[in-house]
């Protein structure tokens, strides 16, 4: 693993294009830049096309979704009807807006919880050498390799015994366990909270709690934001766990709700469910894409730290 503390050169190199080797030195053949830019452009089209399709088809009627060219608009303009259907129980499978609310609650509370637990544990691992610290840290890291599918079913089996099936806590509490969060916070605290500062505070008689709250947390805000965002995305996108532990559709998050809407749209005889499903998909991804565009540096901050795991 590379040390999180980078040399000045490395930091300069990480800063951006201004510091890269001038490209004329590579002696490239003419046209190379154009060709590579076109290849990247083609891949960007591949990435953007489905999202564009989603935006366009959220404005159509069901007949037009199937009957008109997928990448162009068609009359009648049905976007507002499709969006308003999200507030009603159109499929008999539940109400989309309720799923949106549930997702906000699950993602929000799990993210706050995961951030608090990760900050505490990250600090514990980064700045203390208590007995068993190394072994426990490896235990935490090894859970990264545990298949989610083989934990979700066991969780359900335990929930069935203790009455946590169809309980919001059954969704929120396990989502607070974040090995990536702990890894990021440990690395971040190692790099940005000087030991001497902690020692000085101790000399002045500050309690451990006070040191954590008043010194460690304020110094690690960017790391905390990264963990918060990564957990929001992870819970927002989680499908398998809620699918297994919830059987009441009033508790579904968006992913499970959309999945049940898909089944209703395809098998049910009720008309006009496909455009509602598409509009629902659009409303599901918009908040995360906006969050990501505005806070991109924090997401990349997470990826940056992740790159040192090897």
């Amino acid at each position, binding site marked *: 693993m590379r040390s999180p503390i980078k040399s000045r050169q490395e930091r300069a190199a990480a800063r951006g294009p201004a510091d890269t080797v001038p490209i004329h030195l590579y002696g490239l053949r003419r046209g190379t830049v154009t060709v590579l830019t076109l290849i990247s452009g083609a891949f960007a089209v591949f990435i953007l096309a489905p999202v564009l399709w989603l935006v366009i088809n959220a404005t159509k009627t069901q007949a037009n979704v199937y009957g008109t060219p997928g990448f162009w608009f068609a009359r009648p303009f049905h976007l507002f009807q499709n969006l308003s259907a999200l507030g009603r129980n159109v499929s008999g499978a539940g109400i989309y807006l309720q799923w949106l609310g549930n997702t906000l609650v699950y993602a929000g509370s799990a993210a706050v919880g995961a951030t608090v637990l990760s900050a505490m544990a990250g600090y514990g691992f980064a700045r203390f050498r208590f007995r068993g610290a190394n072994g426990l840290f490896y235990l935490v890291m090894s859970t990264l390799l545990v298949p989610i599918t083989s934990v979700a079913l066991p969780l359900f089996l335990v929930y069935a015994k203790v009455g946590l099936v169809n309980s919001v806590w059954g969704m929120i509490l396990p989502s607070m366990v974040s090995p990536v969060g702990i890894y990021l916070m440990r690395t971040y605290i190692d790099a940005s909270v000087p030991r001497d500062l902690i020692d000085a505070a101790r000399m002045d008689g500050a309690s451990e709690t006070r040191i954590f709250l008043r010194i460690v947390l304020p110094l690690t805000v960017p790391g905390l934001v990264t963990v918060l965002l990564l957990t929001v995305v992870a819970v927002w996108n989680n499908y398998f766990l809620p699918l297994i532990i919830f059987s009441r559709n009033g508790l579904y998050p968006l992913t499970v709700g959309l999945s049940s809407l898909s089944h209703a749209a395809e098998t049910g005889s009720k008309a006009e469910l496909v455009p509602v499903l598409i509009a629902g998909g659009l409303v599901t991804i918009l908040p995360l894409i906006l969050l990501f565009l505005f806070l991109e540096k924090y997401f990349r901050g997470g990826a940056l730290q992740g790159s040192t*795991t090897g």
Partner: protein
Amino acid sequence: MNQTTTYRESAPGRPVSRPASPPPGRPRRGNRREWPGAVFITPHMLALGLFMLVPTVYAVYDSLQTTQLIGGTHYSGLANYSTVLHSPEFWDGVRRVLVFTAIQVPLTIAIAFFFAAVFDAGIVKYSRFFRTVFFMPFAVPGVVAAVMWSFLLLPDFGPYAKLMQDIGLGHVDFFSSRLIVPTIVVIVIWEWTGYNVTILYTSLKSIPQHVTEAAVMDGARLGTIILRLKLPMVRPTITMLVFLNTVGALQLFTEPSILAAFQPQAVSYGFTPSLYVYNTSVGSGDYNLGAAAAVVLALIIGAISLAAFAVRRRSGEFR
């Protein structure tokens, strides 16, 4: 981990008067200053124990029982395991995810490395825009991605099937038994390539600039610099990505389970081991058998991880 520790031990500016710290891994007992660390990690370890370790142990226990409509639950030894291991459906799924993993993981990482390397070398215009666009599917849940692709790839009506007809490839059914695995590979590449690009790009950026400069001065071609110089330097990152992508690929569930809503004929009961686990337990109500299948799946993934780990360690790559 070692280098981090080394850094800490030799951190400049530490008071000389303080007694030398004990070596890592052998903490001093009863040290007054160290116990709060244990308190700080307790909430997380408690959650980890309650929501991962306890359920895992309980699942093993449950997989050794059999529940009957008449007669209740009783211990049945390895009977459930025998059922899983003799189920052609289960092995069919295992074979399919192995093939899927063998195609998807190298392909995703190769494409991601290509883009990360050319962006890093600064030989693509608008590379900042491209990096942002490529990373965007990270914010799209697998469920939504699978819904979008189900419609885009619809036989006859979908835009991509029409495109195939227009360029003269005739009638293409992306959900036929021959094409379903490649189709899911495309969907997963759409979802995860950008994430891999971002991590590789960051890793490539941390290679000191003078290393590249020296190679350029020696007259090395760009292709040589990327493949012979930079690729070996980011190998630890690639290894980590191989691990993460592989564990993800072996658990394949979301995409086929959504495709099953639109193309029921394309996705069977045991299409992947995770689907088998879901369909036997939640679908058919045989939770004991589902638990046994979940344990077998975890063991397969664990064995593959361990094997990769051992190879990596023998080749001296493990830190």
